């Protein structure tokens, strides 16, 4: 096997639970060393796709190869899992262990013992900034610390592919920032990173490419900036629909931009030239406010599906 072998190759990958089609025949390839994100609302099929990748779900249909190994049949699961680092969505840390014991116990699952294990535990305590909490019981840690410990635990086996299912869901902004720093460091170590998120800023910040999922399918895939260029625009102007209506300026505003949409009580104007369009919009609004911002992946999702990421 060469390093040219993609980290993940999926062809027609699908999964159903009874009548519910969770993943509906998706194709994607993730090259080695890439940071790849699955972005989409809850129920889009991201987590089911991830569970098939980290071998907690059998492949329902189609084909899945991981690091060149066969994940469709499940035959190579042990070999695949030896090269994956899995950070689950829900907190499944062992509440009865201390931070250090957690790492020590999982060293054994990665066939590390003695001095090699001690060195790995040491390294990861530093990586996760948990050295001064090493002998605390897991149950006493904050949410951010727990998630950092889960990441550290997932890195014990020096994985070629790190899989993170909603790594920062439920964390406060500071804890999220700190976790992002850790993940950026991981990226520089050239591990392949695969993550799911429903936070567009997280996807933009961490991912080289994202696949946007909706209703079990991948609706588009590409680099975040490219997707924004292609499906939305570099700049977006937001106007409260009520303001636009009371100024009688809805149609005038829509003409100022290259494209427009209304969503959640707001009128969204998509444009290349943010400042010129903003000036035109403010003129049309006659003193009522407008808000200029960068285009985001949320706009991409909205433009493609007509819905927001939250629902």
């Amino acid at each position: 096997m060469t390093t040219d072998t993609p980290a993940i190759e999926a062809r027609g990958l699908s999964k159903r639970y009874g009548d519910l089609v969770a993943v509906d025949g998706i194709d994607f390839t993730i090259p080695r060393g890439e940071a790849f994100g699955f972005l989409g609302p809850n129920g889009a099929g991201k987590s089911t796709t991830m569970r098939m990748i980290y071998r907690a779900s059998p492949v329902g249909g189609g084909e899945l190869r991981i690091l060149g190994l066969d994940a469709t049949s499940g035959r190579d699961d042990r070999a695949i899992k030896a090269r994956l680092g899995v950070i689950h969505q829900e907190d499944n840390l062992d509440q009865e262990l201390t931070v250090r014991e957690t790492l020590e116990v999982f060293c054994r699952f990665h066939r590390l013992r003695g001095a090699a294990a001690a060195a790995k535990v040491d390294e990861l305590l530093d990586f996760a900034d948990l050295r001064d909490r090493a002998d605390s019981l897991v149950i006493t840690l904050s949410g951010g610390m727990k998630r950092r410990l889960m990441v550290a635990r997932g890195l014990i086996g020096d994985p070629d592919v790190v899989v993170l299912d909603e790594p920062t869901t439920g964390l406060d902004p500071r804890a999220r920032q700190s976790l992002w720093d850790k993940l950026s460091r991981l990226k520089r170590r050239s591990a392949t990173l695969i993550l799911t998120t429903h936070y567009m800023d997280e996807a933009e910040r961490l991912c080289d490419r994202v696949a946007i999922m909706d209703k079990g399918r991948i609706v588009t895939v590409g680099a975040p900036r490219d997707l924004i260029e292609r499906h939305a625009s570099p700049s977006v102007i937001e106007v409260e629909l009520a303001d636009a209506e009371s100024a009688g300026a809805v149609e005038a505003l829509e003409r100022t931009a290259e494209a427009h949409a209304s969503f959640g009580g707001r009128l969204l104007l998509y444009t290349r030239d943010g400042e010129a369009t903003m000036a035109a919009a403010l003129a049309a609004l006659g003193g009522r406010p407008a808000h200029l911002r960068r285009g985001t992946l949320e706009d991409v999702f909205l433009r493609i599906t007509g819905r927001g990421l939250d629902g």
Partner: protein
Amino acid sequence: MKLFGDIDLEMALAVWRRNLTVYRRTWKMNILPNFFEPVLYLVGMGVGLGSYLGEDVGGTAYVAFIAPGLMAASAMNGATFETTYNIFIKMNFARVYDAFLGTPAQVQDIAFGELLWATTRALLYGLAFLLVTAALTVAGLPILTSPWALGLPLVLALTGVLFAALGELFTSLVKTIDLYSYYYTLFMTPLFLFSGIFYPVDRFPHGAAIAWFTPLYHAVRACRALATGDVGVATAADVTWIAVVAALAFAVVPRRTRAMLIR
């Protein structure tokens, strides 16, 4: 090292090790009851009730008659608690196994590791009981009257394996924790009462024939045989019965548990 059914022993031992790590923190608190239980039963039943019975039961002092069976029951209880409530909580509430499965460990490794651990706990329970009976023997009670008694730890371990496998089997079938009360009331309690611990099983019509099909009966008989030196073909048959049924029960556990964890 790979065992039957693609069990990776290194992974199973990692599970065992995790349990030991947790136990090491609490053992000082947990081990004491293991000594109280035999003392309470032996004094309460053996000495208390036994003083009304004379020397009729099995041709020996009542306390000596019931001690080997209670020892077997003690091993049964240790293995059963570990593989019922404890595994259910680790599997369904703490989701600890999901984390194990994110490593090279597979379901069958976890099932086997838990079996080894439950057996370890059963052995600890049984050995605590054995120590108490040894002390009472030295004090003059005719409980361990044969050098065959040295083989008791082996039978206690086998009893542990058997009840660990049965507990895991039940746990692999139930979806709610409430169902364990049936396991305890309709399975464990009758075993405790009707396996020949307190009186010979032929007290009831067809008692011995029915008891032959139940697990604790064989453990009680094997323990009693080793304690008294009345070892024979029947003892070998009891030990074989235990080993075969344990293997049969455990054989279906990984597939059933996989259906619960891998979806």
